[in-house]
């Protein structure tokens, strides 16, 4: 399976949401990391034939996906970032309906639905109406619907949003299980989601892919160092003004700071290994700060 983005661009009026992206993806897990408004959803919608590019093309094994039409979507599973269900349908009916939309024969569909309901852990909720499900259960139903046709291309837009830490870990494991023989593109702004499962990480900002590579490559890509130091209360403000702070732990006497800087920021500072979070912060600057804090 190969997806090739060729000069892919989407403009909304004069605003460019996706800016001339050219890339090739093959089987494996791709983690699309970016702040709000980076263009992740727009990119994914084009990959799902929901939006037509303003410029450029997307090729699946060499054929234009918009020309392949249904044949392309047959290979596709999509979990949108924001989506709803038919509130009065039960989980079981809902999945059967989506299976029908995916052109799966009824007998096969029934079997697939049963399997997936148990795989995503919704066995006890299968007869419940969609409107009665919790947020986490809805997302699991969403993943189940994406998997119905055993898609070779799986596109997941912030699949872990709103999941509690347990669910998130379960979900990561599920993705790892599914990742064989498949192309998975998942977006998130939660760094730890992709840290473990993505074979390749893409950092996206303002419509372009700023950096891409394995976790190690991405971490190695920043030309600065990461430092840790404890400082007194009255020093905090000055350091915050002059350096990028990736983390701050407040203590009775002052705080322990994690600082991104080429040079040693203070006498007591010790160099440490950079993490993906530090990289995220480095590239996305102040904007990323609130994102980084969300992780704690």
């Amino acid at each position, binding site marked *: 399976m190969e997806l090739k983005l060729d000069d892919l661009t989407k403009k909304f009026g004069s605003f460019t949401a996706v800016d001339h992206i050219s890339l090739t993806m093959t089987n494996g897990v791709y983690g699309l990391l970016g702040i709000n408004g980076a263009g992740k959803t727009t990119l994914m919608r084009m990959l799902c034939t929901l939006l037509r590019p303003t410029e450029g093309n997307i090729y699946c094994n060499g054929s234009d996906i918009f020309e392949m039409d249904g044949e392309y979507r047959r290979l596709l599973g999509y979990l949108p970032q924001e989506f709803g269900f038919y509130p*009065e349908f039960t989980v079981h009916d809902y999945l059967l309906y989506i299976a029908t939309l995916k052109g799966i024969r009824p007998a096969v569909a029934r079997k697939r639905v049963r399997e997936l309901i148990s795989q995503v852990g919704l066995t006890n909720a299968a007869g419940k109406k969609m409107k009665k499900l919790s947020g986490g259960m809805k997302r699991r139903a969403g993943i189940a619907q994406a998997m119905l046709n055993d898609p070779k291309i799986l596109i997941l837009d912030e699949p872990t949003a709103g999941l509690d830490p347990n669910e998130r870990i379960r979900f990561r494991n599920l993705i790892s299980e599914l990742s064989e023989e498949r192309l998975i593109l998942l977006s998130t702004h939660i760094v730890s989601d992709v840290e473990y499962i993505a074979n390749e990480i893409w950092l996206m900002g303002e419509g372009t892919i700023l950096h891409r590579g394995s976790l190690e490559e991405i971490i190695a890509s920043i030309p600065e160092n990461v430092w840790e130091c404890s400082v007194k209360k009255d020093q905090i403000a000055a350091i915050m003004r002059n350096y990028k702070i990736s983390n701050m732990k407040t203590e009775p006497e002052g705080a322990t700071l994690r600082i991104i800087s080429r040079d040693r920021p203070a006498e007591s500072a010790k160099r440490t290994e950079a993490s993906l979070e530090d990289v995220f912060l480095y590239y996305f600057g102040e904007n990323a700060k609130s994102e980084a804090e969300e992780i704690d």
Partner: protein
Amino acid sequence: MVRFEIKKIFSRTGNKIALLLLAALLSLTCFLTIGSVEYVDEQGESASGIGATRRLREDKNQWAGEITEGVLLKVLQKNAEINASEEYLSKDVQENNKAYAKKQGFSDIRDMLNHAFTPFREYDYYRVDSLTAEEIAKFYEQRVIVLTDWLNSDEAKDRYSEEEKNFIITKYRELQTPLYYEYADGWQAFAEYAPTIIMLTVLLLAFPIAGIFANEFQCRAESIFFSTRLGRNKAVLSKIYAGIWIITGIYWTVILLYSVVVLGILGTDGAECAIQTGLGGWKSFYNITYLQEYFLIVGGGYLGSLFILTLVMFLSARTHSTALPVTVPFILLFIPSFLSNLPVLSEALGILPDQLLQMGQTVCMFNLYQVGKTVFGAVPIIMILYPVLSCALLPLLYHIYSKTEIK
């Protein structure tokens, strides 16, 4: 897939309510229709219902048969007799009602006589009372004479072309006389009230019908829908089929129930009578029987509903919401009656889709359309125009929805 679409629509509470409301309104309309046929008994008391209907039918069917000069003379004589009776001359309304009760049997024929001998745009209930036997002999000719007089009057002179005038006069002459008469209140009441229930059906069906295409967006399920293999082809077709199924199924269920109840209780006598035998149809230039009129009403109603609701589907597919589409039937059905005072629009108003929903009235209208030297009444035009438009809308609907982009 069609089954799922229908299930999706009627699982929504609002749509269930619309159906229940329709059922309630259907009962109410049946009730009103049946109640509209009244019988006045010997005591001068009015009543309606099964018993009253049966007696009215007996009274009227004593006059059943061809309306020949002999019959008309008998009506004239009977009318004069009653007019001379104590009850009729009394100052007491109750007594007058007793007199009316005796006229009931030939009241329809009496109405026809009144029409035949008063100017086209007028109606004089007492005209019969002063008719002479010589005049009566010209009963059927009178219909054409009154029409011709009107067509030459200031009011109508410039309204119709020569071809159009000839067209109506020819149609009038083509009416087979003497007319055959029978009790036909069942068909008449049906024709009078059918538009009410047909319009209510369209107005209420607009909600589920608009939902078929708008629901995906209201439930925010559209991203998944359109990213599936069949989401932009077969699934869209299924939605269209589901819409047509719902319109067809519910329309015919309602109309069938309404027909069975109304005609079952009021009777189907008079099916073969010309619609000109009644008060309402006397002036119509469509030479059809009550049975044929019935088929026009239910068939026209179906074609009209199909068109209006296809338009609703189209608009909901376009706007992704139900708000505007559900108001469209209201606009199409009620605006024309507000505009009917504007003479400039009268030509256009005659072929709007609301006409299809009230064929009983449409066949009594004088809306004519001329192409070259050929003249048509509104009925054949709208019976062809709207099915064609519906068929043209369907591919557009399919196209618009299957090309939907999610922004």
